[in-house]
């Protein structure tokens, strides 16, 4: 695969424009998942878990811009930058041989089941438990919340805490005994993606299905997932924001306000420039974050947190500005701008911590706290 980021982005954008965009509005109206559309992305390497983070980020950017489908982009992120990367980089040989080809082709879909809704604070952030059974197997019990791809996934990366307080990670087949995927959650946004809660009741997993070593569930597995979320899964949102800017420019060329062309308004012009500048800055931060991830253990996690914060706030700013430009044309329409603006803020919240939390963590780290 060529490492020319611009070329990768163009390639992904072209494919997504042809394979994803034409049906995005209809699928959004119908809240319809299209696995075949995701599988088509494999032909430009969008599903390749062994690609570098920089390559995946460039491809993801193009997917977002060309596909104009936030839900599918979100599903892609959970699959490629979540489950697939974990299997590719941290799973044992047997698991890799069993699942990697199917994950890379899209024949199998992955998800990451980590977040939970906790009744009480937990040092690890999860309450799902794993215990060793008498015959050297493991048994999982717990509930995961709002798992993207869960209703349609084939495998899930599941985290659980053992009796020693260490977090382990396992690759669990969705159809395994003891795994119950709840009903698909009805959402107002990201309607072309699928979300569900996942319950584990005495779910038995084998030792070879454990990912990483004992106690590496947070320190290695989820750290990898978090890095790829911030450097790769955010990339389509940059592309989507760019598409939103382009849609706003196109609208400004033809729209009118108080009987005059929108494009002649200096206020509108300034808003369009600020949108575009913000997206350009976000794209550079994500590309930089991806390069950091590719440095492996030398990765500067602070740079990734900065990227996540900036992109998250960019999505909100650009979405709001786009709605201002479109004005009353936002009402009752299938305009991509309206869909994107609706999904932008939601997508950012699902991918990472709330911006207030991210900002506080970055500030605290800057002060040497924690």
């Amino acid at each position, binding site marked *: 695969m060529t490492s020319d980021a611009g070329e990768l982005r163009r390639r992904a954008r072209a494919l997504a424009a042809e394979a994803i965009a034409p049906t995005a509005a209809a699928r959004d109206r119908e809240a319809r998942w299209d696995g075949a559309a995701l599988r088509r992305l494999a032909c430009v390497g969008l599903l390749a878990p062994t690609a570098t983070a920089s390559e995946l980020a460039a491809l993801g950017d193009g997917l977002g811009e060309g596909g104009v489908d936030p839900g599918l982009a979100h599903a892609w992120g959970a699959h490629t930058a979540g489950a697939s990367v974990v299997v590719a980089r941290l799973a044992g040989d047997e698991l890799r041989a069993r699942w990697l080809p199917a994950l890379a082709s899209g024949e199998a879909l992955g998800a990451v089941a980590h977040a939970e809704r906790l009744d009480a604070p937990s040092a690890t952030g999860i309450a799902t438990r794993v215990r060793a059974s008498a015959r050297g197997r493991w048994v999982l019990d717990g509930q995961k919340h709002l798992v993207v791809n869960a209703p349609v996934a084939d495998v899930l990366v599941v985290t659980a805490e053992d009796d020693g307080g260490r977090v382990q990670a396992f690759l669990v087949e969705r159809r395994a005994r003891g795994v119950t995927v709840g009903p698909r959650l009805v959402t107002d946004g990201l309607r072309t993606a699928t979300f569900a809660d996942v319950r584990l009741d005495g779910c038995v997993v084998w030792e070879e299905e454990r990912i990483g070593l004992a106690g590496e569930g947070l320190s290695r597995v989820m750290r990898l997932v978090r890095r790829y979320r911030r450097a790769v899964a955010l990339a389509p949102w940059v592309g989507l924001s760019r598409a939103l800017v382009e849609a706003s420019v196109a609208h400004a060329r033809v729209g009118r306000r108080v009987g005059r062309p929108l494009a002649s308004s200096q206020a509108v012009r300034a808003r369009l420039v600020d949108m575009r500048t913000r997206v350009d800055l976000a794209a*550079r931060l994500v590309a930089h974050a991806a390069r950091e991830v590719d440095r492996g253990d030398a990765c500067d996690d602070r740079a990734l947190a900065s990227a996540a914060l900036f992109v998250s706030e960019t999505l909100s700013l650009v979405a709001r500005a786009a709605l201002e430009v479109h004005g009353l044309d936002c009402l009752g329409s299938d305009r991509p701008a309206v869909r994107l603006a609706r999904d932008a803020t939601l997508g950012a919240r699902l991918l990472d911590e709330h911006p207030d939390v991210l900002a506080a963590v970055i500030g605290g780290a800057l002060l040497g706290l924690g």
Partner: protein
Amino acid sequence: MPFSCEDFDRLCRDRIAPRAAAVDAAGAIEPATMRALADAGYLAMFHDGTDGEAQGRAMEALARACAATFWAASISTVLCGKMLSTLCSEASRERWLGPIAAGDVVGSFGASEDGAGSDPGSYRTVLYRAPDGTLRLDGAKSRITNACTADVCVVVAREGDPRSGPLCYAVVDLSAPGVSRRELPRVGLRGVSWGVIELHSVVVEEAHVVRDVSYEATLGAVEWGQLLQAWCGIGIGEAALDAAARHVRERAAFGRPLAHLEAVHGPLGRMRAELDAVRLLAREVSRQKGEGRLAREAVMMAKIAATEVGVSVAQAAMRVSGGWGFATTLPFERLVRDSLGNVPAGLPNDRLRELLACAMLDASPWAYEPLDWLEPAGLAIGG
């Protein structure tokens, strides 16, 4: 000797930064500082093939140490120097570029006038042929950095007719008879000279006049000005963030340092993210300019974003520092004042927005449409 980024960082941090407050209070930069910059290679690095990334890093380090010193040195060697090297004649380059790079003379660029800022169509300084056959300049350039300290000025003038003559560049020896100068009062950057250069029948040699300069060539030089303003915004922002972090660690309230408050973490975190973002763009522009390329829209976006981030970060740093942020014994008020100068400098940010937007919309940045929205909106008095 190749330029050493580490040595330059040390010079800025250990020698120049501690003097920044004094420079602001005195309204002047010590000659020894300019000599130190010359000896460190800062003035020459923009003309000797040093790569763009190192140039950008040096600009940030100096701006972070002292924005006024940065402006004085950079307008001379970067803006005036690039004008000389890319637009002006061989004679002008030989006479002035080497001495600027060596720190022996100071340069300036004279475009704006009292009645003309963003609109070159309003320039009235005129170059004309006097009855004795000499070329002479009449007019006044206003809001010029290094106005009272410069030895040379690249002046934009109209040739022949002050209203309709074609624009040209005249390289003016400011020691020539007929030149008078004065400072203008301003909010910030008080250590650098900034004022008016009046030209009363000043003789200019034919060899130091350049005509028919292409738009691309002009852009190539002017972009350096926008880039240095971007780096100044970033440098001021970093200085402000650093000062704020130090202050909140030391200052206690309610029994613990301010640094323990979430209300402090959040703003600092956002400052960090914004500075990281604009730095990446400025670095890319520095790379492009260092390679001799036009940066076009990238440098305009960098100038807008970085200068405005500089202002917002400086203001946020003052805010998290509470009442002491307002005191002149801490650097925040100087940093806020200095940061404001970058926004209108060169082309003001809102004019740059217009230019960028018109390119996006295929509209003309020169067309004027009178405001006539009152009647359609039902707001006309008596309407």
